[in-house]
Protein backbone atom coordinates (compact mmCIF):
# COMPACT_ATOMS: atom_id res chain seq x y z
CA UNK A 1 0.00 0.00 0.00
CA UNK A 2 1.36 3.43 -0.98
CA UNK A 3 1.69 5.36 2.32
CA UNK A 4 2.09 8.84 0.80
CA UNK A 5 -1.63 9.65 0.38
CA UNK A 6 -2.06 8.88 4.09
CA UNK A 7 0.94 11.04 5.03
CA UNK A 8 -0.34 13.95 2.91
CA UNK A 9 -3.86 13.59 4.35
CA UNK A 10 -2.53 13.56 7.93
CA UNK A 11 -0.37 16.68 7.38
CA UNK A 12 -3.28 18.43 5.66
CA UNK A 13 -5.63 17.63 8.57
CA UNK A 14 -3.11 18.90 11.14
CA UNK A 15 -2.19 22.06 9.23
CA UNK A 16 -5.77 22.93 8.27
CA UNK A 17 -6.97 22.36 11.83
CA UNK A 18 -4.21 24.53 13.29
CA UNK A 19 -4.52 27.26 10.65
CA UNK A 20 -8.31 27.38 11.05
CA UNK A 21 -7.96 27.64 14.81
CA UNK A 22 -5.39 30.46 14.54
CA UNK A 23 -7.43 32.39 11.97
CA UNK A 24 -10.74 32.06 13.85
CA UNK A 25 -9.08 33.09 17.15
CA UNK A 26 -7.31 36.06 15.54
CA UNK A 27 -10.46 37.34 13.81
CA UNK A 28 -12.54 36.95 17.01
CA UNK A 29 -9.85 38.74 19.08
CA UNK A 30 -9.49 41.65 16.62
CA UNK A 31 -13.28 42.06 16.40
CA UNK A 32 -13.74 42.03 20.19
CA UNK A 33 -10.83 44.41 20.82
CA UNK A 34 -12.01 46.81 18.11
CA UNK A 35 -15.52 46.88 19.64
CA UNK A 36 -14.07 47.53 23.10
CA UNK A 37 -11.84 50.29 21.71
CA UNK A 38 -14.73 51.89 19.78
CA UNK A 39 -16.90 51.93 22.89
CA UNK A 40 -14.09 53.49 24.95
CA UNK A 41 -13.50 56.27 22.41
CA UNK A 42 -17.27 56.95 22.26
CA UNK A 43 -17.25 57.94 25.94
Amino acid at each position, binding site marked *: *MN*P*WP*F*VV*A*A*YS*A*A*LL*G*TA*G*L*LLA*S*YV*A*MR*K*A*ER*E*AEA*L*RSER
Partner: protein
Amino acid sequence: MHAFANPARFLRLARPLTRWLGWGGFLLTLGALAVGLFAAPRDYLQGESVRIMYVHVPAAWLGMAGWAGLAAAGLMQIVWRHPLAGIAGRAIAVPGAVFTAVCLVTGSLWGRPTWGTWWQWDGRMTSMLVLLFLYFGYIALADAERERDGEGRLAAIFALVGAVNLPVIHFSVTWWNSLHQGQSIGLTASSIDSSMLWPLFGSALGFTLLFGAVVLMRMRASLARQKVEARLKRMAA
Protein backbone atom coordinates in the same frame (compact mmCIF):
# COMPACT_ATOMS: atom_id res chain seq x y z
CA MET B 1 0.79 33.04 39.17
CA HIS B 2 -1.32 35.15 41.53
CA ALA B 3 0.25 38.32 40.08
CA PHE B 4 -1.17 37.56 36.62
CA ALA B 5 -4.70 37.05 37.96
CA ASN B 6 -5.12 40.78 37.42
CA PRO B 7 -6.61 41.24 33.91
CA ALA B 8 -4.80 44.55 33.23
CA ARG B 9 -1.43 43.08 34.20
CA PHE B 10 -2.20 39.94 32.20
CA LEU B 11 -3.04 41.98 29.08
CA ARG B 12 0.23 43.95 29.30
CA LEU B 13 2.08 40.63 29.10
CA ALA B 14 -0.31 38.84 26.71
CA ARG B 15 -0.21 41.44 23.91
CA PRO B 16 3.50 41.09 22.98
CA LEU B 17 3.55 37.39 23.96
CA THR B 18 0.77 36.50 21.48
CA ARG B 19 2.90 37.78 18.59
CA TRP B 20 6.07 36.03 19.79
CA LEU B 21 4.33 32.70 20.37
CA GLY B 22 2.48 32.92 17.05
CA TRP B 23 5.47 33.71 14.85
CA GLY B 24 7.87 31.50 16.83
CA GLY B 25 5.43 28.58 16.65
CA PHE B 26 4.77 29.15 12.95
CA LEU B 27 8.46 29.12 11.99
CA LEU B 28 9.37 26.22 14.27
CA THR B 29 6.43 24.07 13.17
CA LEU B 30 7.08 24.74 9.50
CA GLY B 31 10.81 23.95 9.85
CA ALA B 32 10.29 20.80 11.94
CA LEU B 33 7.55 19.47 9.64
CA ALA B 34 9.73 20.10 6.57
CA VAL B 35 12.55 18.10 8.22
CA GLY B 36 10.10 15.39 9.28
CA LEU B 37 8.63 15.17 5.80
CA PHE B 38 11.75 15.38 3.64
CA ALA B 39 14.94 14.92 5.71
CA ALA B 40 14.19 12.52 8.57
CA PRO B 41 14.81 8.84 7.73
CA ARG B 42 12.03 6.36 6.96
CA ASP B 43 11.37 3.69 9.56
CA TYR B 44 12.83 0.23 8.90
CA LEU B 45 9.45 -1.39 9.67
CA GLN B 46 6.76 1.23 8.97
CA GLY B 47 8.48 2.89 6.00
CA GLU B 48 7.29 6.37 5.00
CA SER B 49 4.09 6.25 7.07
CA VAL B 50 6.19 6.97 10.20
CA ARG B 51 6.26 10.62 9.05
CA ILE B 52 2.70 10.95 10.37
CA MET B 53 4.31 10.80 13.83
CA TYR B 54 5.45 14.46 13.48
CA VAL B 55 1.85 15.68 13.48
CA HIS B 56 0.11 12.88 15.39
CA VAL B 57 2.27 12.83 18.54
CA PRO B 58 2.26 16.65 19.15
CA ALA B 59 -1.53 16.64 18.63
CA ALA B 60 -1.91 13.83 21.19
CA TRP B 61 0.34 15.60 23.71
CA LEU B 62 -1.53 18.88 23.27
CA GLY B 63 -4.93 17.21 23.56
CA MET B 64 -3.86 15.77 26.91
CA ALA B 65 -1.89 18.83 28.05
CA GLY B 66 -4.93 20.96 27.20
CA TRP B 67 -7.10 18.98 29.62
CA ALA B 68 -4.36 19.18 32.28
CA GLY B 69 -4.47 22.97 31.74
CA LEU B 70 -8.28 22.94 32.08
CA ALA B 71 -7.98 21.02 35.37
CA ALA B 72 -5.32 23.44 36.68
CA ALA B 73 -7.51 26.42 35.71
CA GLY B 74 -10.50 24.71 37.37
CA LEU B 75 -8.52 24.19 40.56
CA MET B 76 -7.44 27.85 40.61
CA GLN B 77 -11.01 28.96 40.02
CA ILE B 78 -12.40 26.82 42.84
CA VAL B 79 -9.63 27.36 45.41
CA TRP B 80 -8.43 30.93 44.78
CA ARG B 81 -11.33 32.30 42.69
CA HIS B 82 -8.88 33.80 40.21
CA PRO B 83 -10.84 36.08 37.83
CA LEU B 84 -8.84 34.82 34.86
CA ALA B 85 -9.05 31.11 35.64
CA GLY B 86 -12.53 30.59 34.15
CA ILE B 87 -11.55 32.65 31.08
CA ALA B 88 -8.38 30.56 30.70
CA GLY B 89 -10.39 27.33 30.96
CA ARG B 90 -12.83 28.39 28.25
CA ALA B 91 -9.92 29.57 26.08
CA ILE B 92 -8.09 26.24 26.39
CA ALA B 93 -11.12 24.01 25.70
CA VAL B 94 -11.60 24.65 21.97
CA PRO B 95 -7.93 24.27 20.89
CA GLY B 96 -7.70 21.23 23.18
CA ALA B 97 -10.69 19.67 21.41
CA VAL B 98 -9.30 20.53 17.96
CA PHE B 99 -5.91 18.94 18.72
CA THR B 100 -7.61 15.85 20.19
CA ALA B 101 -9.66 15.55 16.99
CA VAL B 102 -6.49 16.02 14.89
CA CYS B 103 -4.84 13.28 16.96
CA LEU B 104 -7.74 10.89 16.28
CA VAL B 105 -7.86 11.68 12.55
CA THR B 106 -4.08 11.44 12.01
CA GLY B 107 -3.95 8.28 14.15
CA SER B 108 -6.62 6.71 11.98
CA LEU B 109 -4.68 7.73 8.85
CA TRP B 110 -1.54 6.19 10.37
CA GLY B 111 -3.36 3.02 11.40
CA ARG B 112 -4.72 2.14 7.95
CA PRO B 113 -1.35 1.57 6.18
CA THR B 114 0.38 0.30 9.36
CA TRP B 115 -2.19 -1.94 11.05
CA GLY B 116 -4.58 -2.45 8.14
CA THR B 117 -7.48 -0.81 9.97
CA TRP B 118 -8.79 2.75 10.41
CA TRP B 119 -10.06 2.16 13.94
CA GLN B 120 -9.95 -0.34 16.78
CA TRP B 121 -11.93 -0.12 20.01
CA ASP B 122 -8.85 -0.58 22.20
CA GLY B 123 -7.79 1.24 25.35
CA ARG B 124 -5.67 4.04 23.82
CA MET B 125 -7.99 4.98 20.98
CA THR B 126 -11.18 4.69 23.00
CA SER B 127 -9.81 6.74 25.93
CA MET B 128 -8.67 9.43 23.46
CA LEU B 129 -12.18 9.49 21.94
CA VAL B 130 -13.59 9.82 25.47
CA LEU B 131 -11.28 12.84 25.93
CA LEU B 132 -12.81 14.47 22.83
CA PHE B 133 -16.32 13.91 24.22
CA LEU B 134 -15.20 15.34 27.58
CA TYR B 135 -14.02 18.49 25.75
CA PHE B 136 -17.43 18.77 24.05
CA GLY B 137 -19.12 18.38 27.43
CA TYR B 138 -16.90 21.03 29.02
CA ILE B 139 -17.50 23.51 26.16
CA ALA B 140 -21.28 23.02 26.35
CA LEU B 141 -21.31 23.32 30.15
CA ALA B 142 -19.07 26.41 30.25
CA ASP B 143 -21.14 28.14 27.54
CA ALA B 144 -24.41 27.31 29.33
CA GLU B 145 -23.03 28.68 32.62
CA ARG B 146 -21.78 31.82 30.91
CA GLU B 147 -25.19 32.47 29.33
CA ARG B 148 -26.75 32.28 32.78
CA ASP B 149 -24.10 34.69 34.15
CA GLY B 150 -22.69 31.91 36.31
CA GLU B 151 -19.17 31.82 37.68
CA GLY B 152 -18.29 28.65 35.78
CA ARG B 153 -17.77 26.59 38.93
CA LEU B 154 -19.64 23.58 37.51
CA ALA B 155 -17.39 23.57 34.45
CA ALA B 156 -14.36 23.85 36.76
CA ILE B 157 -15.49 20.80 38.75
CA PHE B 158 -16.16 18.94 35.48
CA ALA B 159 -12.59 19.75 34.36
CA LEU B 160 -11.16 18.36 37.61
CA VAL B 161 -13.26 15.18 37.45
CA GLY B 162 -12.44 14.68 33.76
CA ALA B 163 -8.72 14.72 34.56
CA VAL B 164 -9.13 11.13 35.76
CA ASN B 165 -9.08 10.17 32.06
CA LEU B 166 -5.49 11.43 31.61
CA PRO B 167 -3.73 8.56 33.46
CA VAL B 168 -6.12 6.14 31.73
CA ILE B 169 -4.91 7.42 28.33
CA HIS B 170 -1.27 7.36 29.41
CA PHE B 171 -1.26 3.86 30.90
CA SER B 172 -3.80 2.31 28.51
CA VAL B 173 -1.02 0.74 26.41
CA THR B 174 0.41 -1.05 29.47
CA TRP B 175 -2.87 -1.95 31.21
CA TRP B 176 -4.55 -3.52 28.15
CA ASN B 177 -3.51 -5.36 25.01
CA SER B 178 -3.42 -2.74 22.29
CA LEU B 179 -2.63 -2.35 18.62
CA HIS B 180 -1.09 0.96 19.61
CA GLN B 181 2.63 0.86 20.33
CA GLY B 182 3.83 1.20 23.91
CA GLN B 183 5.54 4.24 25.38
CA SER B 184 8.63 5.09 23.34
CA ILE B 185 9.60 8.42 24.93
CA GLY B 186 10.27 8.55 28.67
CA LEU B 187 11.57 11.28 30.96
CA THR B 188 15.15 9.97 30.80
CA ALA B 189 15.34 7.71 27.75
CA SER B 190 13.79 7.12 24.34
CA SER B 191 13.68 4.16 21.97
CA ILE B 192 13.41 6.56 18.99
CA ASP B 193 16.62 7.42 17.14
CA SER B 194 17.80 11.03 17.56
CA SER B 195 17.48 11.67 13.80
CA MET B 196 13.71 11.24 14.27
CA LEU B 197 13.51 12.55 17.82
CA TRP B 198 14.76 16.11 17.17
CA PRO B 199 12.24 16.95 14.44
CA LEU B 200 9.57 15.44 16.70
CA PHE B 201 10.59 17.71 19.60
CA GLY B 202 10.75 20.65 17.17
CA SER B 203 7.23 20.08 15.88
CA ALA B 204 5.91 19.42 19.42
CA LEU B 205 7.41 22.71 20.63
CA GLY B 206 6.17 24.56 17.53
CA PHE B 207 2.60 23.30 17.90
CA THR B 208 2.76 24.07 21.65
CA LEU B 209 3.73 27.70 20.93
CA LEU B 210 0.84 27.95 18.43
CA PHE B 211 -1.51 26.44 21.03
CA GLY B 212 -0.30 29.09 23.49
CA ALA B 213 -0.90 31.85 20.94
CA VAL B 214 -4.46 30.59 20.33
CA VAL B 215 -5.19 30.45 24.08
CA LEU B 216 -3.91 34.02 24.57
CA MET B 217 -5.94 35.32 21.60
CA ARG B 218 -9.09 33.63 22.91
CA MET B 219 -8.47 35.03 26.41
CA ARG B 220 -7.94 38.53 25.01
CA ALA B 221 -11.19 38.21 23.02
CA SER B 222 -13.08 37.10 26.14
CA LEU B 223 -11.70 39.99 28.21
CA ALA B 224 -12.58 42.51 25.48
CA ARG B 225 -16.13 41.10 25.22
CA GLN B 226 -16.51 41.28 29.02
CA LYS B 227 -15.40 44.91 28.92
CA VAL B 228 -17.99 45.71 26.21
CA GLU B 229 -20.78 43.91 28.09
CA ALA B 230 -19.92 45.70 31.36
CA ARG B 231 -19.84 49.08 29.64
CA LEU B 232 -23.14 48.50 27.82
CA LYS B 233 -24.75 47.48 31.12
CA ARG B 234 -23.46 50.67 32.78
CA MET B 235 -24.72 52.78 29.87
CA ALA B 236 -28.16 51.12 30.01
CA ALA B 237 -28.46 51.61 33.79
